[in-house]
């Protein structure tokens, strides 16, 4: 099983006098009690992971266990705990609630060797690059719509000016010029607004996912791909290509999609320049390009 070798995470909540261990089992050591309460993962009803905490609800437990991310020793520990939860979720199928993620869930991975013909890169996901990639996507979708809107605004403005001022041989050039400029300004406004929305979107999901600020290992191989926090990645876990539908390539990154949702952002700068062609080849061989 993918991610089966992750070491358990020990979390001490000094205020509550409780120590949690998230690993092969979920153990709760309460100050003053002789033995820990230990829960197996098949007893887990649901777990919710947010940017602030994680809450476990076990069958037969008198209360839910909520662990603030602040009490973890490091961000790496939080990410390891999340990886353990997602690995177990694949096996036991408990309810799992989480915020928007920019990389595939660990439950999508299979333990399989990437093989010799694979490309491995590493890097932090750049917010500006991601926004730029999204904008490229957006531009692609918006372009026809923008032209149409600009044309419509031009015609409307032309009609209004004609109705208000009346068209004469002296002002026809001005009316055409004003109509063209109005259409242009309108299209520019829409363009600026959509770009701002794209940037805000990237910012919001970057904030929601701890992995956005972590070093990520990217693996591209014929067996599958990986985009996983380096502190958690074990070099033999891949998401099979059939988990994705298509990919889009911008000048700075590949974005792999499942339906309309981006599954993984793979920046080109994570790989050495001479490998980019090979990476693109494998992705293009495995997925449809749009």
């Amino acid at each position, binding site marked *: *099983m*993918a991610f*089966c*070798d992750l*070491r*358990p995470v*020990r979390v001490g909540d000094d205020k509550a006098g409780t120590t949690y*261990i998230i*690993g*092969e*089992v979920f*153990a709760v050591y309460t100050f003053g009690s*002789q*033995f*820990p*309460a*230990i*829960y*197996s993962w098949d*007893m887990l009803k649901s777990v919710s992971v947010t940017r602030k905490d994680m809450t476990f609800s*076990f069958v*037969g*437990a*008198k209360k839910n266990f909520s662990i603030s991310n602040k009490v973890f020793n490091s961000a790496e520990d939080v990410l390891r705990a999340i990886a353990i939860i997602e690995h177990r979720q694949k*096996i036991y199928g408990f309810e799992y609630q989480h915020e928007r993620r920019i990389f595939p869930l660990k439950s999508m991975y*299979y*333990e*399989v*060797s990437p*093989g010799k013909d694979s490309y491995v890169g590493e890097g932090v996901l750049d917010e500006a690059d991601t926004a730029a990639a999204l904008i490229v996507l957006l531009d692609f979708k918006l372009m026809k719509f923008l032209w149409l809107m600009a044309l419509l605004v031009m015609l409307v403005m032309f009609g209004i000016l004609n109705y208000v001022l009346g068209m004469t041989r002296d002002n026809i050039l001005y009316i055409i010029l004003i109509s063209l400029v109005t259409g242009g300004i309108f299209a520019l406004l829409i363009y600026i607004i959509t770009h701002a929305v794209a940037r805000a979107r990237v910012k919001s999901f970057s904030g929601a996912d701890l992995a956005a600020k972590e070093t990520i290992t990217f693996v591209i191989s014929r*067996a599958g791909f990986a985009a996983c926090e380096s502190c958690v990645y074990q070099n*033999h*876990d891949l998401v*099979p290509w059939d988990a994705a539908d298509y990919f889009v390539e911008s000048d700075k990154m590949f974005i792999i999609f499942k339906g309309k949702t981006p599954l993984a952002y793979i920046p080109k700068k994570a790989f050495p320049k001479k490998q980019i062609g090979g990476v693109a080849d494998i992705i293009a061989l495995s997925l449809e390009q749009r």
Partner: protein
Amino acid sequence: MSVEIKSETIDVKGQSVILVSVRGGENAIGTFSIGSNSRDGVLGTETRLLYIGTDPIINMTCSSGASKKSDKLMSFSPGFHGYDQKVFDVLTSAFLSLNRGDSLTAGLKGIFSLLQDGVYAVYTSDYYPTDGNGTFFWGAYNTNHEVHGTAEHNRITMSGNVYKPCFLIPTQSMGYFTARALASTEEFVKKRRIHGIVYHVSGFHSALLKGHHGAVACTKENIPYKCAVIEKISDPYTEKIAPVQMVENQEEENGENQSAPVPPTPVPVEREGITGFRSPSIKIPIEAFPKDMLNIIVNGLSEYKPPHFEVITAKLDSVRKKAVTNNIFSNEVLEKAEQMPDAGMVESAYAISSLSDEELNRLLAGDVEFNGKVIISPNFYSSIVTACNFLQFTDMKRFIDFSIAIMDNPDLSATHEYVAQRVLSQEKNTKLYNFFKSAAASGDAKYEKILPAANTFLKRYEADNRR
């Protein structure tokens, strides 16, 4: 980091259990997952490897992911080239130590240092030197095939029953077998108290670390194959009944009474979560664990990838040396292996917890019910089969008596042949000899179906006594 090995004997429901904890182990013997193999062709398959030192020994492939309810496809790993000399020396020294009379914990200390971190139960138990499907274990794994009884939780044991693994997986290839070694071992096995050292791997199957020639000799000589067993305790289990809390004796806590431990006093407690951790053969409540051992389980993993796992997996692509051998076992050994209980029989023996004499008498009378309740199964033939399995496993004397009573009853002739074949393995039993001798001599038609088995039995018994 040096290896830290601690052993402790605890009391679980009146049963004494030896626990050994290993911290900082050398990771030279164990199992680990290599996930899906490109050769499998399907991403959903999961392969685990039994390794010793830097050698992959056995491939265990589960075609339904990592399901613990499925039997595994097993075969000798193509990358196996033979033990590291260091491991071989440690195993040999442990084996000699045990047969010199050392305790299990003292004798196996060297082997514990080679294991992965964790808590292990140690005990002795008789093993059948077969693959659990009637084939002598050594050589049974040369081709990849599904081995019945290798599922961690099968239809019997998934109900939470404990069971004793009793089938073997070799860790030496057939090329290692020599007739000369066998001849000398045949003399030794009569005096040995421990014939093999095994490490539990999956379901009813354990890997034989030491004692391959002894297994051949014991089968030939009809000597029970007694093994020192090492089982990892890591599976959580939950029981609905409230467990008991073991309250340690006050004097013992103060260290004043260490030589004579007083059994802990059971106090019922209400608890949330799991009841404890288990291995196949033992369930240990959380309260019964020494604290440091419980910490090792909770803070550890059930399986670790050894640091040198890439060296091991790289060998999977190579071709096994001595993959072809001219060594063969005698027909006597192979036939005896075929008559030993198989995995299906052992499973059904664990399906019932007890059989009273009254219930057996009802079965002998041809009834399947006692006091208005079905004794084993509404099917009579199935009831006889299961009763034989259960008795053979739990009480050999009652098994022999029950078998003779069946074979002596002409109304149960439908089961005669089956029962006669089942008792063939007990070829040193005088009671059976006398019964078969009188049956063969009587010429009575009611013994018609047992005559072939009776003649084989008599031949073997007499040949055995002539030696």
